[in-house]
């Protein structure tokens, strides 16, 4: 069971405007993020979906300046969080935000824990640094966090090293670390991708429970449209470093408006409906991102592409009249209207 608590009026906890990140490499610049804007309200879960190289992880890393600079450079954008622009903070100030006010769960639980320190030490570190707890207090809090994420006999396991935990248990430890300082926002970067489906189901259940109990605001990055369908309130689809579609989760799956989202949903073989004789596939390759897009990045692979798509890059615009008290804006960056089967009216 999921709760759908799309709030259209609650306070905005995070607002990102026109974020751009460029990597300088030996072979020239790679434009990983090309002007991404979104916001998150309190208690919401925003899913960010995209394939590898679509810029979803770099976007989230850029928010906290976790991208290595250089070679990366955040060339434009504003990230408003708690009435501050995170991008203008000094290294010392942003370190307080990371792991303190914003928790981050990384993809691979095998490599993101330090193998030479005990799990307890790694859990207590943020508690002592950010919250100023004493060693004994931190230990107690750490044990209660492990209990919260469903690790049996938590007090004893604090002295174990990461290799003594299984993959699913390690991801629980990562979640416990991210939750340690009662963050206002939790960013999860493909937290279940490295896990088996039955373990993934356990973690998803855990996250649903935590949201119910703590009312956590979350951003969940994934390439799995199935996972997002089960937990997100709103979804943003990324392609070529841009958000190409955004909608409430029901709207996105019921009536995808961008040809990419549309095609992506078609390529998935289903577990319950009629088996298709042949899978739909999206021909071609993802874009190379060696320049900022001036035309639609999906046009070369798009079945609806027409002359304008190769000339101008469509801006993302609302298709249902924008945000309202009881409505989530359904935004799309496309010149073509799939439902009408004709180009969109204006430009």
């Amino acid at each position, binding site marked *: 069971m999921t709760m759908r608590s799309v709030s259209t009026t609650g306070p905005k906890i995070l607002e990102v405007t026109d974020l751009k990140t460029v990597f300088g490499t030996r072979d020239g610049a790679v434009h990983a993020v090309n002007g991404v804007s979104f916001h998150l309200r309190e208690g919401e879960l925003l899913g960010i979906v995209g394939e590898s190289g679509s810029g979803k992880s770099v976007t989230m890393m850029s928010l906290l300046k976790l991208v290595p600079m250089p070679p990366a450079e955040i060339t434009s954008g504003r990230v408003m969080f708690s009435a501050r622009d995170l991008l203008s903070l000094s290294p010392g100030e942003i370190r307080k935000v990371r792991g303190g006010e914003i928790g981050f769960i990384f993809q691979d639980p095998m490599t993101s824990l330090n193998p030479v320190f005990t799990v307890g030490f790694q859990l207590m570190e943020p508690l002592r640094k950010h919250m100023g707890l004493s060693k004994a207090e931190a230990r107690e809090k750490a044990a209660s966090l492990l209990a919260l994420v469903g690790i049996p006999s938590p007090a004893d396991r604090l002295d174990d090293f990461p290799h003594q935990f299984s993959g699913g248990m390690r991801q629980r430890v990562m979640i416990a670390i991210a939750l340690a300082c009662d963050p206002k926002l939790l960013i999860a970067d493909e937290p279940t991708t490295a896990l*088996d489906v039955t373990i993934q*189901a356990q973690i998803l259940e855990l996250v649903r429970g935590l949201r119910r109990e703590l009312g956590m605001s979350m951003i969940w990055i994934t390439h*799995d449209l199935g996972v997002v369908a*089960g937990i997100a309130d709103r979804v943003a689809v990324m392609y070529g470093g841009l958000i190409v579609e955004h909608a409430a989760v029901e709207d996105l799956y019921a009536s995808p408006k961008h040809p990419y989202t549309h095609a992506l949903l078609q390529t998935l073989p*289903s*577990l*319950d409906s009629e088996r298709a004789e042949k899978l739909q596939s999206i021909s071609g390759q993802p874009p190379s991102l060696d320049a900022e897009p001036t035309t639609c990045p999906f046009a070369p692979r798009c079945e609806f592409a027409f002359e304008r798509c190769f000339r101008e890059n469509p801006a993302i615009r609302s298709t249902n009249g924008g945000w309202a008290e009881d409505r989530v804006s359904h935004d799309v960056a496309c010149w073509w209207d799939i439902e009408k089967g004709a180009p969109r009216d204006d430009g």
Partner: protein
Amino acid sequence: MTADTMNVPGNAPGNAPGNAPSPRSDTTPLMRVENLKMHFPIHAGIFRRQVGTIKAVDGITFDIKRGETLGLVGESGCGKSTAGRVMLRLYDATEGKILLDGVDIAPFKGERLRKMRPRMQMVFQDPHASLNPRMTVGSIIAEPLDEHGLLKGAEREERVEELLDAVGLNPAFANRYPHEFSGGQRQRIGIARAFALNPEFIVCDEPIAALDVSIQAQVVNLLEDLQARFGLTYLFISHDLSMVRHIADRVAVMYLGKIVELASRQDLYATPKHPYTQALLSAVPIPNPAVEATREHIVLKGDLPSPANPPAGCNFCTRCPIATDLCRVEDPEWREIEPGRHVACHYVE
């Protein structure tokens, strides 16, 4: 048997694509394994004494009919890749029979084994790791031909071009190196290499797991096309249950070295019998929020036990929602509950 195993590689590789080997009328399954076991020793201490065994594959029995695709699903560490590799004789089986066309190949050694190899090939999971970065695509694809000494000179070049064309790559790419290709294209190169000797049986070990969603469908469609064109038999190993539902004719579900359920695709997905299969299917997220919101998830407790120390009785008893004392003592028998439908559980009617 020798005549049978010997003549196949000879008759095959020179053929142009399109000359599919004629399907035989006999009903012998192309591949059958009987009580197959693969145990790996664990060594420890300064004398490297054996202190235990990992029972990666612990007694599996099934057949694969000519021209069909058998899906083998399970979570990581359940032994599905080991099963595929031991069937190809990449490992020496600890016990059991591997019958290729009715001939037990498990005891084959040396030259006899090498001569048999062109009949069975493998497509690997990671297209970044399974292609030698220092070899050109042409030499990668031609390596099986060279190894088995089948084609030389212009014929060899021609065969490479033909294979590249068959997997949807430009034959002019033969002189390029693997790093110049994307993940999906590299997987096509791996597929071309597996097809070079016109094998009858191909083990696809998670061939799409490392690829993006939009590219996965391209590769699966290619595998299906090639199967139809050349009358191939596949063992399709995957953890992606929805993709297996698409590609497989029959599906075997593996847990901790054993197959717990084997059924036709329709039966397995419509009415899973084994509690593990039920849990596995219910754990797959469905890309439809309306369905997800109302669906009951069976969430299994705990993790996969270690295959070095499997539980007594049924392997699944530590996580099974319906386990009883009987399950903790007695290993359930592998039985046929309906024609063509096998399950290993005490409580399935």
